């Protein structure tokens, strides 16, 4: 709760600091704010508390996911350096919107009431609609914002229908009440309940861009300014999956049989569509969009497994995925900006020679994304797969996932090959600020550290 | 019994309608006479003695004029627009307490069509619906002047609605009730709200000028820039409805101001007068009847004030209008809420 209040206040302060002539103070200030929120959030650890008539509960689950999301924002903000250099007039608004959207994300992982879930999703989404279109003069950014907004509004409607139908069937917005009603009635109260559940699943699947509701993702990710794409594919997705798991665990555990077939279909489809779609891309950013779809699939696998290891594996996977994605987008941002806005694999040609640091960070990130040992991504996938394997009937799902991970190695290593094996067309060194380099090193070290000692995070929940 | 109740209600409604329409009709006459007086002219004096039949002649003209509906307009919305404006204007007079209760044959009759406990909210809500009539009509005309007039009207009305609502909030903090009758009863004698809410009254007065689209806020229909504004394309009875709705709105705004700030039907020494009669029923009825007269005197004064301002002040520019609404009135209204809150807690 403190983090929600702090973030709101800090966001407003940021807005007003933006009226100062010099925008240089904004980045350090925002980082400081996020660090304060991160610290304040930790104080709630092991001290679960409910707020607003139990509409919000800050328990360890919420604290852990809040921590990851704040950390992810903290790590990706330093790469907004170029906005400061070009003296973007709306810089303060961008930072504030990120802080405000974090409020929504936190509500999505700590809700106990469907209304809070809905409000959280809206707070998060509306900020993202704006940020998607923040590059006002680029047509693609406008297109991305409009697509995201129209699609998002439509699926928000679907989600709301789901909530309403569930309310109609159970007479409550509270997760515990819904669970109680469902438990008495063998998990399926009536047709209205089942339909509502289906609509809920569809609505949230859209938010985490799971197939077949992923169609907006590539276009929106490509058009959105890279910094915010990075935020979208990390924080928004983590919040969505965490909210999804919480919803299923707290309200619909008894209705497992009702949503399991739908969800497993979505999961398999997401894995296949995400990975196969990524293979055929020539644009690195679009590839990352499809890759984020496929990672939604891995995250959903943990949800499908639905046992005591699910939440911890979602947590670890989210963290490892966020770290690697932030690096990938950050490097892409620097490379494409200084190589004429080129976002294809060819832009990375010869990066290993000109910028060994960037190339190395990118390689580690790609390894982590594809799940190579000694990186965080390996343990992320391992934990998810072991969670799924507990149920022997789901063995086939793991086989599909491993096959798809192998496909993943192919397209993730395309960029590594480009960096180290292709001659540089443009031998100019990519300029990168010292703070940003430090951040890249930090994230890379963190990724490898988690790959060696996963217990740092995996045993939290 | 039930049908008797219904008949009573119907009579109430007819009476209120009649009063409203009569006053609105003669407001047009008064407007022209006042204008003439201020401009040192004679004004209408041909139809009937002192030109008193002039409004009827005008109304007749509205009926007999040929009407055009532009070929390019949206026909249905074109008709609905003035309809909404008029319906909304008529509805808003429903809750105004014109007087206290009369006792006739042991039966208590309140001189108010409807007593709802959210009267103020009702008026506030219904009046703000009025902008739909303007907006729909202006848009449906498919005329550039009308469109500009319509969006100006919408923008202006919503801007001033906020400050108006906030000045009402300050009144509500004092009365603790949304019922207009209770608000009126609390101001018995000379205990009028104006003594406690001068700033609120000025804000409310300004906003009601803007809400009724009267000069100096008549930008939606300013002739020099926009021909007739949102009703450029209107003629015949539909134009009549728009113009009539404006005068009804003035009447309602005056009545609300009199009720909220100037003690409605209350007047000084009314209790002494009531006690001067030996029979309490007679005393009550006499005081009530005088109260009704007082109420209408207050309403007429405000209607006159509307006209006085119209022929005295020049029109605002649009940027000045928005600046006044957002940057002066709203901060002032918020300040007024804070002052009222502090005042109530400190002195009460």
């Amino acid at each position, binding site marked *: 709760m403190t983090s929600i209040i702090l973030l709101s206040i800090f966001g407003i302060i940021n807005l007003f600091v933006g009226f100062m002539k010099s925008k240089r103070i904004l980045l350090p200030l925002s980082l400081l704010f996020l660090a304060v929120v991160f610290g304040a959030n930790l104080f709630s650890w092991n001290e679960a508390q409910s707020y607003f008539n139990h509409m919000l509960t800050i328990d360890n689950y919420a604290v852990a996911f809040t921590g990851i999301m704040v950390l992810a924002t903290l790590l990706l903000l330093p790469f907004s350096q170029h906005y400061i250099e070009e003296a973007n007039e709306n810089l303060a608004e961008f930072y504030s919107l990120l802080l405000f959207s974090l409020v929504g994300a936190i509500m999505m992982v700590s809700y106990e009431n469907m209304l809070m879930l809905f409000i959280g999703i809206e707070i998060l989404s509306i900020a993202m609609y704006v940020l998607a279109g923040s590059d006002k003069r680029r047509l693609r950014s406008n297109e991305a914002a409009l697509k995201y907004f129209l699609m998002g509004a439509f699926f928000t409607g679907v989600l709301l229908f789901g909530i309403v139908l569930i309310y109609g069937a159970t007479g409550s917005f509270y997760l515990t009440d819904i669970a109680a009603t469902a438990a008495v009635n063998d998990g399926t109260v009536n047709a209205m309940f089942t339909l509502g559940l289906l609509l809920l699943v569809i609505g949230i699947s859209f938010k985490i861009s799971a197939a077949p509701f992923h169609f907006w993702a590539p276009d929106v990710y490509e058009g959105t300014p890279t910094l915010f794409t990075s935020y979208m594919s990390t924080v928004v997705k983590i919040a969505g999956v965490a909210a999804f798991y919480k919803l299923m665990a707290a309200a619909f555990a008894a209705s497992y049989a009702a949503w399991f077939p739908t969800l497993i279909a979505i999961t398999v489809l997401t894995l296949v569509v995400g990975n196969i779609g990524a293979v055929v891309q020539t644009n690195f950013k679009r590839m990352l969009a499809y890759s984020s779809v496929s990672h939604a699939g891995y995250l959903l696998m943990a949800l499908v497994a639905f046992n005591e290891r699910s939440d911890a594996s979602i947590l670890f996977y989210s963290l490892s995925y966020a770290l690697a994605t932030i690096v990938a987008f950050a490097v892409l941002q620097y490379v494409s900006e200084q190589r004429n806005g080129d976002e294809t694999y060819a832009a990375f040609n010869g990066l290993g020679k000109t910028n060994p640091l960037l190339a190395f960070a990118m390689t580690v990130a790609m390894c982590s994304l594809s799940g190579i040992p000694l990186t965080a991504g390996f343990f992320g996938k391992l934990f998810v797969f072991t969670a799924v394997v507990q149920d022997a009937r789901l063995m086939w799902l793991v086989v599909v996932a491993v096959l798809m991970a192998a496909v993943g190695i192919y397209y993730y290593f395309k960029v590594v090959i480009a960096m180290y094996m292709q001659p540089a067309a443009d031998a100019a060194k990519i300029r990168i600020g010292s703070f940003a380099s430090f951040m890249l090193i930090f994230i890379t070290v963190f990724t490898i550290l988690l790959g060696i000692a996963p217990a740092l995070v995996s045993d939290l929940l | 019994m039930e049908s008797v109740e219904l008949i009573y209600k119907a009579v109430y409604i007819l009476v209120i309608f009649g009063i409203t329409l009569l006053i609105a009709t003669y407001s047009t006459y008064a407007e022209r006479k006042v204008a003439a007086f201020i401009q040192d002219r004679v004004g209408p004096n041909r139809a009937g003695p002192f030109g008193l039949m002039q409004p009827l002649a005008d109304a007749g003209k509205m*009926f*007999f004029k*040929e009407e055009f509906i532009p070929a390019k307009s949206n026909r249905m919305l074109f008709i609905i627009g003035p309809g909404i404006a008029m319906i909304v204007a008529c509805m808003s007079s429903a809750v105004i307490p014109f007087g206290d209760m009369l006792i006739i044959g042991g039966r208590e009759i309140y001189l108010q069509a*409807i007593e709802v406990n959210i009267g103020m909210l009702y008026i506030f809500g219904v009046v703000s619906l009025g902008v739909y009539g303007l907006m729909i009509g202006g848009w449906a005309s498919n005329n550039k002047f009308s469109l500009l007039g319509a969006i100006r009207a919408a923008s202006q009305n919503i801007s001033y609605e906020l400050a108006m609502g906030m000045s009402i909030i300050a009144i509500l903090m004092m009365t603790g009730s*949304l019922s207009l009758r209770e608000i009126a009863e609390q101001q018995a004698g000379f205990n009028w709200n104006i003594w406690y809410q001068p700033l609120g009254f000025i804000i409310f007065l300004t906003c009601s000028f803007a809400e009724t689209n009267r000069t100096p806020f008549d930008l939606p229909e300013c002739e020099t820039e926009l021909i007739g504004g949102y009703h450029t394309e209107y003629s015949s009875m539909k134009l009549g409805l728009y113009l009539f709705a404006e005068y009804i709105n003035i009447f309602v705004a005056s009545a609300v101001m009199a009720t909220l700030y100037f003690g409605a039907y209350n007047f000084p020494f009314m209790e002494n007068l009531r006690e001067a009669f030996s029979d309490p029923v007679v005393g009550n009825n006499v005081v009530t009847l005088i109260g009704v007269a007082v109420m209408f005197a207050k309403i007429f004064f405000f209607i006159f004030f509307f006209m006085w301002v119209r022929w005295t002040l020049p029109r605002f520019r649009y940027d000045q209008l928005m600046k006044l609404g957002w940057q002066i009135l709203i901060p002032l209204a918020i300040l007024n809420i804070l002052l009222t809150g502090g005042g109530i807690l400190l002195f009460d």
Partner: protein
Amino acid sequence: MAETYTSDFGTILLFLIGSVIFVMLGLFTAKLIRPHRPNPEKLTTYESGEEPIGNAWVQFNPRFYVVALIFIIFDVELAFLFPWATVFGRRELIEATNGAWGWFSLIEMFIFIGILILGLAYAWAKGHLDWIKPKPILPQSRSGIPPDVYRQFNARQEAKREA
């Protein structure tokens, strides 16, 4: 007051029906008795006597939308303030809490309004509330006669009239 057959809001419905009938009656009577002789010239859109160009249903200044957005925020605030205002001054609540209720509710509402004031201040500082000011072009004429001459002439005329 006696039990009434129609509730208060039922009477409002009667009022609505009455107004609708009144409007329809007016429009219908006018339709019956007025002449109706349209021709294409009469039915064109009025544009100061010129041939109308294009359609009026076009995009207009986005400032109007911004004003509408800010309005909605404050209107919602008003909706919250109305119930607050009616319980704020309740004597029994204030007495039951020894006066603490009044200050508590006042400060709570100050904070709520304060956040919205911050929003207004932000929109203000960002310039969303500034309408475009017209820049009048004053007619300039080059004249060989210096303005002083006019002033002297006027003064002389004034003096003559005074005398």
